[in-house]
């Protein structure tokens, strides 16, 4: 019997998210966005949230719908400004949401570090730019590096293509994006999947996220959107 819980609804899957939590939300634009879990989090009602995600919402669905509730205090992301990020744009311009912009590679690596027990790391990304101002630097092999600290989540909400009953996950195409990294970086990882198969039915060689990182799974009907105005 695996420790991974398989739940009947997205509402059960997001139970226990507390006010003030840091929530890692998977997806790159709409691809891999865990729409059902985010909707369930809206119904669940936790507030004063810090959201870590690549973008700051698209259109009126998913992360954008959560931002609209006013329950997000801060967004940590690499690319908030997009063709259809009007919900975030309005909150930001009204001074109703904090923004921390992080280079995309640092965003991914800082979560990887959190999941891998790495206390901090040095990297040349951002040297000499406003995003490295005030940060500790060190010259390694003649090149200036910036010290970056891990980003840890209280909970991660991610989407995968298929799970088995052990919590092992496979993803689909570029919807994989931040899922495998976020799964490792949160105290509790919650995954929505399109299908749950019996243990043994996933090829062990093809598993991308091993079940040890997965706490809760819920099966949902896949919902897909594309980013409006992308070019």
């Amino acid at each position, binding site marked *: 019997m695996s420790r991974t819980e398989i739940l009947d609804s997205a509402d059960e899957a997001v139970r226990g998210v507390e006010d003030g939590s840091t929530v890692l939300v998977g997806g*790159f*634009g*709409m*691809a*891999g966005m865990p729409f059902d879990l985010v909707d369930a989090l809206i119904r669940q009602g936790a507030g004063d949230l810090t959201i870590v995600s*690549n973008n700051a919402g*698209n259109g009126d669905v998913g992360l954008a719908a959560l931002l609209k509730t006013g329950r997000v205090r801060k967004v940590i992301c*690499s*690319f*908030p*400004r*997009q063709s259809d990020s009007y919900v*975030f*744009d309005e909150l*930001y*311009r009204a001074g109703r949401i904090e*923004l921390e*912009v*992080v*280079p*995309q*590679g*640092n*965003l*991914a*690596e800082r*979560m*990887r570090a959190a999941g891998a027990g790495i206390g901090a790391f040095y*990297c*040349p*990304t*951002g*040297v*000499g*730019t*406003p*995003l490295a101002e005030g940060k500790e630097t060190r010259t390694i092999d003649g090149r200036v590096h910036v010290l970056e600290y891990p980003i840890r989540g209280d909970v991660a909400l991610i989407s995968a293509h298929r799970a088995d009953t052990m919590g092992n996950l496979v*993803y*689909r*195409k*570029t*919807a*994989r*994006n*931040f*899922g*495998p*990294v976020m799964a490792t970086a949160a105290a509790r990882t919650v995954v929505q999947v399109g299908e749950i198969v019996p243990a043994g039915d996933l090829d062990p060689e093809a598993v*991308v996220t091993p079940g040890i990182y997965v706490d809760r799974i819920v099966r949902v009907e896949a919902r*897909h*959107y*594309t*980013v409006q105005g*992308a*070019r």
Partner: protein
Amino acid sequence: MPLNPDELAAVVARDIPAGSYVNLGIGRPTKVADHLPEGAGIVLHTENGMLNMGPAASGEQIDPDLTNAGKVPVTELPGASYFHHADSFAMMRGGHLDVCVLGAFQVSATGDLANWHTGAAGAIPAVGGAMDLAIGAKQVFVMMTLFDKQGRSKLVPECTYPLTGVGCVSRVYTDVAVIEVGPDGAAVRETFGVTVDELAERLPVPIKSA
């Protein structure tokens, strides 16, 4: 004659060595893909976790799970692979990409790049993967018009917009000239519809012929 964006994309594509692993930035650089020679074994990387990305998808090919860095639906080519974001950026930051092509607001003669934020009041800063690409790819090409709409040079002695990277650009492809930049300053490789002397008069930085 100055080059139009398509002609410029063709010039960039011509200079990408066979067998290169290449990342094309959002916007204008995306056009380079249309001009890469077939059979040259050039593999496109997209930051959201894919190698051997194919052309934009249309009609029934559109799959919401398969997009490029600009979130545009794309296709996969035979031999494509998918990987997560930390791996995708490890490819950049670890120096495994041969070339990246980025847009820019400004490039300095020594190769500083400003392409993520105008710093204007009310502007929402968004960096994406630009800083990682700028320091990670073995060669960073910039594609831009040489002059802005007011006629000001985007090749500058020192960037006035917030930087993306320091000394990271190796070559600038513009509508009127291809210019090498770096520790030794700016050097013109080729011009389109102007002479080097005419350019030198309009630019705020000293240029030599490469």
